[in-house]
C-alpha cells in the first residue's frame, strides 16, 4: 500500500467538500432521500466516490444501506436530493441505465444464476457475438477464454469455467462478480456486504480484490456492517443509522476504535453487557463487552482529531 500512498495523498488534496462541489467527483450524492409511502427509508445522505478510492458505507441492519445502493444501482429512484455522475445530474430508471453510466453492483445475493456455467454468468447481459443480423451467435470459445483469463488475473484459479457457478464457494462467487464488473469497464463498483457471509480467510481474499479493483482506478463503494473490514481498505467512511447519515469521515480523521464506537454507540454496548450479566452469561464474554464499553466511553470523552464533516 506504500506505493499507493502518494497517489492517494494527491487525490486527497484535490478533494473538496462534496457540498461545495468545486471539484467534480466520479459519483456524488447530495441530500438524497427516499421514502416508501409514509416510511422514510433514507434522508439527507451526502457522499462522494472518486477514482482509485474506496468509500465505505457503514451501518447496522435497517440503517438504510440497501436503499442507498438500490438508488445508485438504478433499482429504485430517489425522491429528494441529487445524484451526480461526473458532475452531471442523473436519475436511473433501470439497472441497465446505471450499468451504461459505468456503475456496476455486486449484490449480497450476487446476481448470479446458480445453475448456469461460470462463463455464461460472467457474460450474462453483455454477451459477445459474431455474425450478422438474425445469424448473430455467441462467440463461445472467446467468452470462455476471456473468463478464464480475467479470473486468473484477479488471482482466481478456477478449475473449469463450464461448471455451474452454484458449485463455487461464497468467496469465489464474490470474486467472479467483482472480476465481471472490472472487465466490463465499470467506473464505480458497488459491493453490497461482500464479506457478510464469509469466514475470516475468505473475507481477507475478498478485501484484497477490493484493493485490486481500487488500484485499477475504480471508485469503490463498500457496504458493510463490520468496521474491522471497512477500516483497512476504506478511504472515506459514511456512517448510517436509521436512514440518516451520522457521520462522514476521511481516513486521516478517524481511527478504527472511533469508527467502531460511532457505529455501535456506547450506550447500547453497556446495555448489552448488563443484559448478559443478568442472564448469567460466560464471564469472559461479559468482560470483553465491558472492556469494549470502557473503550467506547474513552473515545467518546476524548474526541481527539475525529471531526465529522457534516452530521
Amino acid at each position, binding site marked *: 500500500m506504500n506505493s499507493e500512498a502518494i497517489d492517494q495523498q494527491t487525490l486527497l488534496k484535490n478533494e473538496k467538500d462534496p457540498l461545495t462541489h468545486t471539484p467534480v467527483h466520479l459519483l456524488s450524492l447530495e441530500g438524497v432521500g427516499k421514502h416508501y409511502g409514509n416510511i422514510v427509508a433514507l434522508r439527507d445522505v451526502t457522499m462522494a466516490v472518486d477514482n482509485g478510492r474506496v468509500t465505505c458505507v457503514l451501518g447496522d441492519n435497517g440503517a438504510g444501506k440497501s436503499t442507498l445502493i438500490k438508488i445508485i444501482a438504478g433499482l429504485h429512484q430517489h425522491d429528494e436530493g441529487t445524484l451526480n455522475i461526473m458532475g452531471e445530474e442523473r436519475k436511473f430508471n433501470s439497472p*441497465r441505465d446505471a450499468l451504461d453510466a459505468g456503475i456496476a453492483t455486486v449484490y449480497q445475493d450476487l446476481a448470479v*444464476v446458480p445453475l448456469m456455467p461460470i462463463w455464461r454468468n460472467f457474460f450474462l447481459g453483455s454477451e459477445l457475438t459474431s455474425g450478422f443480423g438474425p445469424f448473430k451467435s455467441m462467440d*463461445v470459445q472467446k467468452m470462455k477464454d476471456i473468463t478464464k483469463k480475467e479470473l486468473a488475473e484477479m488471482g482466481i484459479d478456477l478449475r473449469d469455467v463450464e461448471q*455451474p457457478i452454484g458449485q463455487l464457494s461464497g468467496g469465489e462467487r464474490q470474486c467472479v462478480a467483482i472480476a465481471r464488473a472490472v472487465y466490463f469497464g465499470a467506473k464505480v463498483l458497488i459491493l453490497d456486504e461482500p464479506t457478510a457471509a464469509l469466514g475470516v480467510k475468505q473475507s481477507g481474499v475478498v478485501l484484497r480484490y477490493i484493493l485490486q479493483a481500487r488500484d485499477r482506478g475504480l471508485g469503490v463503494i463498500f457496504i458493510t456492517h463490520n468496521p474491522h473490514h471497512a477500516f483497512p481498505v476504506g478511504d472515506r467512511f459514511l456512517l448510517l443509522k436509521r436512514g440518516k447519515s451520522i457521520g462522514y469521515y476521511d481516513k486521516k480523521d478517524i481511527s478504527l476504535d472511533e469508527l467502531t464506537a460511532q457505529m455501535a454507540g456506547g450506550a447500547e454496548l453497556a446495555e448489552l453487557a448488563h443484559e448478559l450479566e443478568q442472564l448469567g452469561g460466560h464471564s469472559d464474554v461479559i468482560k470483553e463487552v465491558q472492556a469494549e464499553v470502557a473503550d467506547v466511553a474513552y473515545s467518546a470523552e476524548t474526541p481527539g482529531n475525529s471531526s465529522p464533516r457534516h452530521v
Partner: protein
Amino acid sequence: MTQVAVQLKPVDERIARQNPFQKLLGRPEVGALVGAIVLFIFFASVSQTFIQPASFATVLYGSSTIGIMAVGVSLLMIGGEFDLSTGVAVISSALTASMFSWYFSMNVWVGVVLALLVSLGIGFINGWILMKTKLPSFIVTLATFLMLTGLNLGLTRMIGGGVSSPSISNMDGYKSAQAVFSSSVTIGGVAVNNTVFIWIALVALASWVLLRTKVGNWIFAVGGDANAARAVGVPVKATKIGLFMAVGFCGWVLGMHNLFAFDAVQSGEGVGNEFLYIIAAVIGGCLLTGGYGSAVGGAIGAFIFGMANKGIVYAQWNPDWFKFFLGLMLLLATIVNLIVKRRAELK
C-alpha cells in the same frame, strides 16, 4: 470442458479426466434418451410391425404433432413459466384461419397469415398480463385457456352455425397451403409427413438459439433467477413475453397442420393437449422450476410419447391403457432425470 483447460494449461491436476460417458450424463436430456431407447427396444421386441419403416414413419408423425409444440413449451419452461392455454390456442389458430377465409371468401393464405398474428397475439397477451400483474403463469394461462375454449365454441357457432368450421377444401390457396403444412415426402418408399421435417427444423433452431445466442443465455437466466438477470441488465420482461410468443408461433404451425390435414376443425378440440406438451418437456429433462433443460430433451419426450401412443396399437393392446403408461412413464422419467442429475453434479 476439459478442452479449454488443456489449451490454456497443459494439465490441471484438479480435474480428473472426465470420460465422454460421464460428460454425457451431465446433459439434461440423457434420462429421456435412456427411456426412449428402453421403450424402443421394448416395443420392437413385442411387435414385429413396430420396427417396419412405414410404422416408424407413423410414430415419427405422431411424435411431431406433440413435438412441434414441445419445442416452444420447453423453451418457456426453461424460461421459468408455464402455458396451460397451448392446447386450445392451437385450435383457435386453426379456426381463425378457416373461419376468416370462409366468411370473407378470401384466399386461404390471408387466413393463414391472420392466424399467425392471432397466435402471436395470444402469446403476447399471456406474457404481457403475466409481467404486468406478476401473478403465477399457472393462473394467467389457466384463465386464457378457459376464455379461448369458450371463444372457440361460441364464435364457431355464431359465425358458422355449427360445432366445426365449414370445409374450406375448394377455396383458393388451399392446395398450396396444404402442400406446406400437411403433405408428405416419400423417402425410400415410405411417406414421411412434412410435420416431421418442420419439427426437426424447429428443434434445431431452438437448440441453436438456446445454446449459441445471447437470447438463449437470457432464457436460462430469467428461468434460473429473474432478479439476478434483471440486475445485470437482461431484459426480463421482453424475454418472457418473447417466449410466450414463440409458443404462440409453434401453436400456429400445429394449428395450420390440423386445419390442412383435414379441411375443417372441431371447435371443442385441443382441451387437455397442453398437458401432453408439458409432459414431453418434463420427460425431456426441463426443470419445473425453470433454468434447466434443452430443446432436444423436449423432442425426445415427444418421441417417447409418439412411441407409446402408436406402439400400444402395434402391439395390439387395448389403447385404453395408453394414459396409464403415459403417467407411469412421466413418473419414471422424472425420477431417472433426478437421479442422473444428482449423480452428474456429484462427479
